[in-house]
């Protein structure tokens, strides 16, 4: 077996060649003959009644082909929520309709109420300005507390702004309340988990094509999961039969959650392509991305940690308001609940956990899963309150965590928040981390910083997350409206090369390189002879796509299962060719041999035989060598880790500089360590970005103040250090065939509390009585906090 491209090899990425030479093909790079262009008319008020839209003048503008308004979509469905949450009282959540184009009311700045299709983009934009629109502005509901408190209604028909009021686990509530009441020490922290804009560098884009001869549609779109998008459009929104709709997600320039969801623009271009019988293209500007991509986070939380005097944890109790924005996006109800509340026991043996989450409608852009999705919010709350408790108790923050860690001999461990952790070793990660950051040298570095007029702080953090959300049977009981398996088809071609069709979608994760490593390792052949096919519903089996760090754990497992079927069948063919019993056939280094003999045939010879089945036992074995597997995991996977960083604070300006950052992660087994490290790096930058610079700010009227890179700060190269990353010696996942856990979100989950803990440490070292500062820790906020 050529180990240099099998499991565990840091194989460089084959997809890089096209990206490095400008040959990548992203949605906006695709131009279809005869295409027209769509431009949307978007609300400039956060809440308003659409009194009238007169399209006459716009239709008369040069190049205009069609104008659509909400009226055109009243007969079709809405974009649905993918997860039903029931409130504590048993009532189902409120699900107001989310139409293709706003109808009756606009509900956030950027809400599209019309679209113009014209020969050119500029003509369409000119015509949008010619629409005669009367929108009566209403007071906007922006702040969650006022939205709950009886402000203006975002959706009149549901008579409340509270989508649901969820308790987890409701049966634990009384015991948790009692434990906190009687606890010797309770630390209480109120915090804000700041709203973020995912900001994939490629803005969303969709181009639709319609073939009147066959009544078939093709949608090229920036999606992390083309099959899910097709299902939503087909089953819920436009009703186009799935066998008439092909969804293609070509090269996609990052997603981070924001491209999981179906958006109205996709439905609009499809409808327009059919009406005009020509392709219709739309590409978002960055401003549109800010106004309409699903945002992330936006929780306001009160968390209490009850503990014994010696630091033994007794209970966590959390009350959270989670902003869902003006409409429910596809996973927006799952994110603050089952991806957040279930993680509220952290890495700890705490016996009592209770979480209350109120999801709140406001006149802002929809909020949904963004890198980490719920787990960053959980980790931030837990790890901030632990750090605060350590200070109050006068304990070392690492020792306090270690004291309460689940120990390696306790797995499988049933957490007080209802999950069963399968494996982990949190002390081992913390050991590694302490060495990585040279904790012993910290005092000297702090002294050196102080000599230079700076304050230095050390922050630590431990996290656990849940990836590869599953199994379908369980999530169905919990309210999921989709299955959470994935699928793969392994097609061995006649001359021995392979096409592997996967449900996962790669938009930076390197699947085209990593998945072949798995198959090559199993078959003992060169990875270069294996190609991954993804992103096209016409080519791939029905899989759920890529999000939640699930690709390898779920889809990779499907690849393994399908490859196992290939091996089983190939062994039968080889047995026939070698005139042996298939039980005696061994596969090694791409050769099928009869155990204990020197008789063998190569993998390529078996493949050829499968497709040219002369002298073939046709009555026992079908020709061909192609297998499909659907894999539905038995449990989540549970990546975990320990992070630390050192920051310097300039007390004169409040500016925070990250001097060093170390991440010790447990991702189980590793397929390609180079790619895994890259995933951690990216997650860290997004988490550090959340902690220090990124913030989404609406004013009281619902205007988005941070609607461009002039005001929404994206972390730059000079904001960040080189990171130390170690994910060696992980504890394998016990329930998937690769023993892998997922690595895509860890960095974004573990880093925000690490940074805040470090900054608080720095400020306290300078004599500032600052217990907490809300993210992002911009210079202005830190300086203001230091003023007392």
């Amino acid at each position: 077996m050529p180990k240099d491209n099998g499991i565990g090899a840091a194989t460089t990425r084959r997809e890089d060649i096209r990206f490095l030479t400008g040959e990548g093909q992203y949605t906006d790079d695709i131009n279809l003959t005869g295409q027209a262009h769509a431009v949307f008319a978007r609300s400039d008020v956060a809440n308003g009644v659409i009194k009238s839209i007169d399209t006459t003048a716009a239709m008369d503008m040069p190049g205009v082909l069609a104008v659509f308004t909400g009226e055109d979509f009243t007969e079709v469905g809405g974009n649905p929520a993918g997860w039903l949450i029931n409130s504590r009282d048993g009532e189902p959540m409120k699900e107001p309709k989310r139409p293709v184009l706003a109808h009756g009311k606009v509900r956030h700045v950027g809400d599209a109420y019309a679209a113009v299709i014209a020969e050119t983009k500029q003509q369409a934009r000119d015509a949008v300005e010619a629409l005669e629109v009367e929108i009566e502005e209403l007071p906007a509901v922006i702040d969650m507390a006022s939205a709950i408190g009886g402000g203006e209604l975002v959706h009149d028909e549901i008579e409340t702004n509270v989508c649901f009021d969820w308790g987890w686990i409701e049966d634990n509530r009384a015991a948790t309340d009692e434990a906190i009441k009687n606890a010797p020490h309770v630390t209480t922290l109120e915090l804000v988990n700041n709203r973020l804009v995912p900001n994939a560098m490629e803005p969303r884009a969709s181009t639709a094509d319609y073939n009147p001869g066959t009544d078939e549609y093709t949608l090229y779109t920036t999606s992390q999961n083309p099959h899910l998008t097709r299902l939503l459009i087909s089953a819920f929104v436009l009703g186009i039969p799935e066998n008439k709709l092909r969804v293609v997600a070509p090269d996609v320039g990052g997603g981070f959650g924001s491209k999981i969801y179906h958006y109205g623009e996709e439905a609009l271009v499809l409808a327009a392509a059919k009406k005009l019988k020509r392709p219709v293209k739309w590409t978002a500007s960055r401003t549109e991305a800010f106004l309409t991509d699903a945002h992330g986070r936006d929780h306001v939380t009160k968390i209490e940690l009850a503990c014994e005097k010696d630091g033994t944890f007794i209970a966590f109790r959390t009350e959270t308001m989670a902003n869902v924005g003006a409409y429910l996006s596809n996973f927006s109800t799952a994110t603050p609940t089952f991806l957040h509340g279930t993680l509220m026991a952290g890495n700890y043996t705490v016996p009592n956990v209770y979480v209350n989450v109120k999801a709140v409608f406001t006149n802002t852009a929809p909020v949904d899963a963004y890198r980490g999705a719920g787990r960053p919010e959980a980790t931030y709350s837990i790890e901030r309150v632990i750090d605060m408790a350590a200070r109050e108790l006068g304990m070392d923050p690492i020792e306090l965590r270690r004291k309460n860690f689940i120990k390696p001999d306790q797995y499988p461990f049933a957490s007080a928040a209802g999950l069963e952790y399968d494996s982990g070793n949190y002390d081992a990660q913390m050991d590694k981390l302490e060495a990585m950051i040279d904790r012993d040298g910290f005092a000297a570095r702090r002294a050196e910083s102080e000599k230079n007029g700076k304050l230095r702080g050390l922050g630590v953090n431990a996290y656990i997350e849940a990836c590869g959300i599953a199994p379908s049977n369980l999530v169905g009981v919990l309210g999921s409206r989709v299955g959470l398996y994935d699928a793969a088809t392994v097609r061995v071609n006649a001359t021995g090369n392979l096409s592997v069709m996967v449900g996962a979608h790669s938009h930076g994760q390197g699947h085209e390189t990593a998945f072949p490593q798995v198959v090559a390792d199993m078959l003992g052949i060169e990875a270069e002879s294996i190609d991954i096919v993804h992103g096209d519903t016409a080519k791939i089996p029905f899989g759920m796509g890529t999000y939640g760090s699930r690709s390898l754990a779920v889809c990779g497992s499907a690849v393994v299962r399908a490859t196992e079927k290939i091996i089983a069948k190939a062994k039968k063919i080889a047995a026939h060719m070698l005139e042996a019993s298939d039980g005696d056939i061994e596969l090694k280094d791409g050769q099928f041999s009869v155990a204990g003999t020197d008789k063998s045939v190569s993998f390529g010879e078996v493949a050829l035989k499968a497709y040219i089945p002369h002298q073939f036992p046709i009555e026992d074995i079908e020709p061909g060598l192609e297998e499909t597997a659907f894999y539905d995991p038995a449990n989540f996977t549970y990546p975990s880790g320990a992070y630390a960083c050192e920051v310097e604070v300039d007390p004169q300006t409040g500016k925070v500089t990250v001097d060093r950052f170390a991440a010790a992660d447990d991702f189980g087994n590793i397929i390609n360590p180079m790619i895994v490290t890259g995933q951690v790096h990216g997650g860290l930058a997004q988490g550090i970005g959340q902690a220090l610079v990124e913030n989404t700010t609406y004013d009281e009227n619902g205007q988005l103040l941070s609607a461009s890179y002039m005001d929404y700060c994206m972390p730059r190269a000079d904001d960040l250090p080189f990171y130390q990353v170690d994910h060696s010696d992980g504890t394998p996942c016990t329930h998937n065939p690769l023993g892998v856990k997922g690595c895509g979100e860890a960095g974004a989950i573990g880093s925000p509390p690490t940074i805040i803990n470090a900054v608080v440490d720095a400020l306290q070292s300078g004599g500032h009585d600052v217990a907490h500062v809300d993210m992002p820790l911009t210079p202005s906020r830190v300086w203001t906090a230091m003023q007392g």
Partner: protein
Amino acid sequence: MAQVSMTVNGKTVSGEVEGRTLLAEFLREGLNLTGTHIGCDTSQCGACVVHVNGEAVKSCTMFAMEADGADVGTIEGQANADGSLNVIQQAFQDHHGLQCGFCTPGMVMSAAALLKENPKPSEAEVRTYLEGNICRCTGYHNIVKAIMAASGQDVSAIAAE
């Protein structure tokens, strides 16, 4: 409409443009050189960086007419004559300096401009120079490392796989 002509990646090209046609639009739509990407409206993300007369510029913040007669270099012209990756491109692959690939053309073009003016930049100099190029995937670690490696510096001490 006006006629413009320029040299792009060594070839003379011409086309009809409006006054408002951006250089990035002319490259992408007029010449089908879609490797130059557009990621923002405010001249900050740098996905559109190309070389005009040897200097890095943001092609989404320059009109095509202003490039009339100029020598323009884009990502499509960066590979070696035999089609193999040039030193910077190869370093990006070797050091995993890209993920989704969308910012990559701009990064490579900026890196080339940096190394032309500063053949052995320090880590801090690379980071500072990339102020106008935003990447959302990599956290910059491997981009900085790749550029330093492309300059011939030993990067083996920089943590990574």
